[in-house]
């Protein structure tokens, strides 16, 4: 459990941040919000670097801030990757890593080799810092933060300069680490896909205030305007009911519906979460024959909303009590005579992503 009830900002500054939130003690919380919303300020406050910070920060029972009494930054055991990572110029890459390794919470138990391999740092170890590319810097900074064996990871757009292929390796690793070690992660990102993939909760900041906080489902559901437009989608809780090994697919059930999703190490009975992006959902009046779309969910239209794109509407469908979003053209709405209360079939392209349950609900 991370208890945040803090204010940052001096009376002389125009900007102030006020955050009240209880963040689960493990899993990833995305900190999301427009540029200048106060995301970095929040992370700095938690790391113990913000000036004019007051309130309460309690991390797994340890009070890091209590009124004006603050535990100094170096005793907070955070792993903080800043927005533009600072590496120590006077050390080479391996020196930067060892710097953190020597100060790890439990020296000797670190995963130096594992992290070097994960971030592909082997060829860079002897490099001077000023001979690194932007992405290489970010990778070193991430490995360094993890080597310190933090109790809490603070990641400020940590993969913005990392290519997609490596990002796809790194993010699941952090995810796994966060889960195995019960390590909570505060993750700032502008990439909604990333948030959807990685986060258990979203803390939405706007102008220094919390504009929304809750599970990804909740926040994605309620804050559908603006930023979330493209990523609008739904998350449903489901149970694995079958594994189709030859096709690398798993069947999951929720309410009275079933879905096929690409499987990756699930067992029958696992509780999973399935993310369904609105853009991946089409609507039909009846289940079509002979198409590659193999997931058809029967439901009833709860509402039809406009989106920021003039051609597109968002249709909210109630599937056995859970809401699924579909993004379709207004013309389709008209030609299919879609209207609230009408029964429809939501066609979900199989590719929607599934994930093992975070500890939020545990």
């Amino acid at each position, binding site marked *: 459990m991370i208890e945040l009830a803090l204010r940052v900002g001096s009376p002389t500054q125009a900007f102030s941040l006020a955050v009240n939130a209880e963040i689960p003690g493990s899993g990833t919380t995305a900190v999301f919000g427009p540029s200048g919303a106060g995301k970095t300020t929040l992370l700095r406050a938690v790391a113990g670097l913000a000036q004019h910070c007051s309130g309460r920060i309690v991390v797994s029972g340890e009070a890091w801030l209590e009124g004006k009494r603050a535990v100094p930054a*170096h*005793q907070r055991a955070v792993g903080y990757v800043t927005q533009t990572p600072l590496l*120590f110029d*006077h050390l080479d890459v391996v020196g930067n890593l060892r710097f953190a390794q020597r100060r790890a*919470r439990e020296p000797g138990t670190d995963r130096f080799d594992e992290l070097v391999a994960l971030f592909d740092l082997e060829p860079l170890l002897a490099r001077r810092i*000023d001979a690194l590319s*932007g992405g290489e810097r970010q990778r070193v900074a991430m490995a*360094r933060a993890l080597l*310190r064996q933090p109790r809490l990871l603070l990641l400020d757009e940590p993969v913005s300069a990392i290519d997609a292929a490596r990002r796809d390796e790194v993010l699941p690793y952090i995810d796994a680490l966060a889960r195995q070690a019960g390590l909570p992660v505060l993750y700032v990102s502008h990439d909604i896909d990333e948030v959807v993939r990685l986060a258990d909760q979203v803390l939405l900041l706007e102008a220094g205030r919390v504009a929304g906080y809750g599970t990804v489902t909740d926040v994605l559901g309620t804050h559908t305007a603006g930023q979330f437009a493209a990523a609008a989608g739904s998350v449903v809780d489901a149970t694995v009911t079958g594994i189709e090994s030859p096709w690398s697919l798993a069947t999951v059930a929720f309410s009275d519906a079933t879905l096929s999703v690409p499987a990756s190490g699930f067992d029958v009975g696992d509780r999973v979460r399935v993310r369904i992006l609105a853009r991946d959902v089409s609507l039909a009046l009846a289940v079509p024959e002979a198409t590659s779309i193999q997931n058809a969910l029967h439901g009833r239209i709860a509402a039809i909303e406009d989106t920021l794109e003039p051609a597109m509407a968002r249709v909210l469908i109630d599937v056995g009590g859970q809401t699924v979003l579909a993004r379709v053209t207004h013309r389709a709405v008209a030609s299919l005579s879609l209207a609230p209360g009408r029964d429809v079939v939501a066609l979900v392209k199989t590719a929607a992503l599934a994930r093992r349950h975070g500890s939020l609900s545990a």
Partner: protein
Amino acid sequence: MLGANDLAALWLTARLALVTTACLLVIGIPIAWWLAHTGSRWRAPIAALVAMPLVLPPTVIGFYLLLWLGPDGLVGGLTTAAGWGTLPFTFAGLVVASVIYSLPFVVQPIENAFRAMGRAPLETAATLGAGPWDRFFTVALPLSMPGVVTAAVLGFAHTVGEFGVVLMIGGNIPGVTQVASVRVYEQVESLDYLGAHALSLTLVGFSFLALLALYLLQGARGASAFAREG
């Protein structure tokens, strides 16, 4: 060319300059750190104060030091009470005087280096678990090396060349307080120009080689200063 007295003076100069430089760094670095980091309104006055030994002629400073460090002086009273006797005419006295006189050259470049470094490296070190002393020694100091080197060079060279203060406080005792600079002065005054040329050349030669070595060393590490930062 150089007599026994010259060699003794050179040796004493080397010792004095090294000891003084060490003391200067030990004293100057904390002052520079404080000046660079404090938000106190005493910052400006103290920064100005540190530069004051510069604006008085060395002999005059020497004269005032004689007053303060002597038996009637404030400091002299203290050192006598502590059983150390008085400082003038001792090697320790020379060191004290040289340190006071060269302090501004040491404090300012180091303060600049600390400022140029900014707070970010220290913050990063803190989040990596390094406490204040730890990050001072493993981050702040190495990153401020160019400033420290400059400070040491200026302090060292200035001590080698100093003679006004040293003359006053030292009493020109061969082997104890007669440093090379005083000796050259003496040679010039007594019209022993040949001796003065020889000793000057030796001083310049040695100092030049010492600094050259230092800069070459630093250059080997510091060539990076202008590598791309894109």
